[in-house]
């Protein structure tokens, strides 16, 4: 091996990018070769000096505001896309009105952690009702939906179909709530959709569901020892309770 090849190896070794076998061979070499162990030491010193002396910058507030403003105004430009299917129009309209109303309400609301999560759940539910957003995988078969999440999440969500009881499984979707990717399962009840959001919790409790109503949508929240559950729908509270009971008893 030439000197410059060895140099690459030493750098890759210190960066943790050398394969285990190569790393072992290099370690043996470092014990014997004074030049290479010198190089290693000076590289370590250089790395330490860079981290200590050369700053990673924090974006100035001015830039932060500029980016947010630019995003906001460019996001308002309507994207020229496919025409909306007719049946979706009232639903989408209602959903966008809800978003506006939700925005106003959001300003006034108290921001406890639970309330903040509820906000996110409601926003995700409303977004999911917009055309083309309800499901990433469409299937009424729980054995199709569950494996679909493999490799997309760091947990495997329990998936059940309640078609026999009038709540058919429609599909699943990835969503993002509380700073983490979560599983969203979609169920139907007549013309209504139910979103079930779930993600693992480290210390769950087996409490009764909390119910809240926001902007005409009902939110139910509870935990099992393993998962946090949020259910959102415009379905009547009585039926949503029935659905939640089936989910909890599964």
């Amino acid at each position, binding site marked *: 091996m030439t000197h410059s090849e060895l140099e690459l190896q030493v750098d890759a070794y210190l960066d943790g990018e050398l394969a285990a076998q190569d790393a072992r061979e290099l370690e043996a070499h470092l014990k014997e070769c004074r030049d290479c162990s010198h190089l290693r030491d000076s590289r370590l010193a250089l790395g330490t*000096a860079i981290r200590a002396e050369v700053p990673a910058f*924090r974006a100035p507030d001015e830039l932060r505001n500029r980016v947010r403003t630019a995003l906001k105004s460019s996001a308002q430009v309507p994207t020229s896309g496919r025409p909306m299917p007719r049946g979706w129009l009232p639903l989408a309209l209602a959903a966008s009105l809800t978003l506006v109303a939700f925005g106003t309400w959001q300003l006034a609301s108290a921001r406890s952690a639970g309330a903040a999560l509820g906000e996110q759940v409601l926003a*995700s539910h409303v977004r999911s009702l*917009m055309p083309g957003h309800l499901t990433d995988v469409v299937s009424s078969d729980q054995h199709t939906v569950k494996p679909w999440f493999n490799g997309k999440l760091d947990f495997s969500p329990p998936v059940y179909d309640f078609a026999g009881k009038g709540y058919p499984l429609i599909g699943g979707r990835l969503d993002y709530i509380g700073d983490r990717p979560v599983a969203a399962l979609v169920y139907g009840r007549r013309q209504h959709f139910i979103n079930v959001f779930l993600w693992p919790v480290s210390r769950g409790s087996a409490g009764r569901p909390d119910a809240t109503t926001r902007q005409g949508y009902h939110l139910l929240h509870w935990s099992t020892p393993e998962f946090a559950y949020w259910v959102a729908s415009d379905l009547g509270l009585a039926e949503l309770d029935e659905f939640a009971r089936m989910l909890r008893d599964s």
Partner: protein
Amino acid sequence: MKPRDLGRFEAIVLPHLDAAYTLARYLTRHEHDAQDVVQDAYLRALKYFDGFRGAEATDGRAWLLTIVRNTAFSWRRRYRQEANAAEFDEQLHSQSVEDVHPDTTLSDASARESLHQAIDRLPAEFREVIVLRELQGLSYKEIGEVTGVPVGTVMSRLSRARSRLQRALVTDQEGR
């Protein structure tokens, strides 16, 4: 953009503003240019976001930094010539690695400026790998994605960039 995509964008891409600014700052070597580049890059990112398939915030970093880097380069071509920028002079700093001793006192108060200057003097393709690796901790694979070169090239650029920094430091300190 649809509200749901905007929400995803805010969760996946927006958290990397500091990283984007740091890279732009070192590539442009100018505070205000860096701000313009980052703003421009975010608008481009928003435009291309449809094609991005990552689901987590960590996925967005290399993707965004790629856009920042390309924006910085095309921006520089458009607005600024590097004619007056003092690039690192290979002839002047051609000391070999064997001359570098580990007991060189890098913690010297003078080191801060000279190390920073040495990074600024590196050619852009060396400067970017140093920033991505040392300041932002990207893997070789991610650096390859951002800079558009194979991992082997990342390895050799990083190694050569470090050797240059060490030589520059030694030269600098001996010159005092």
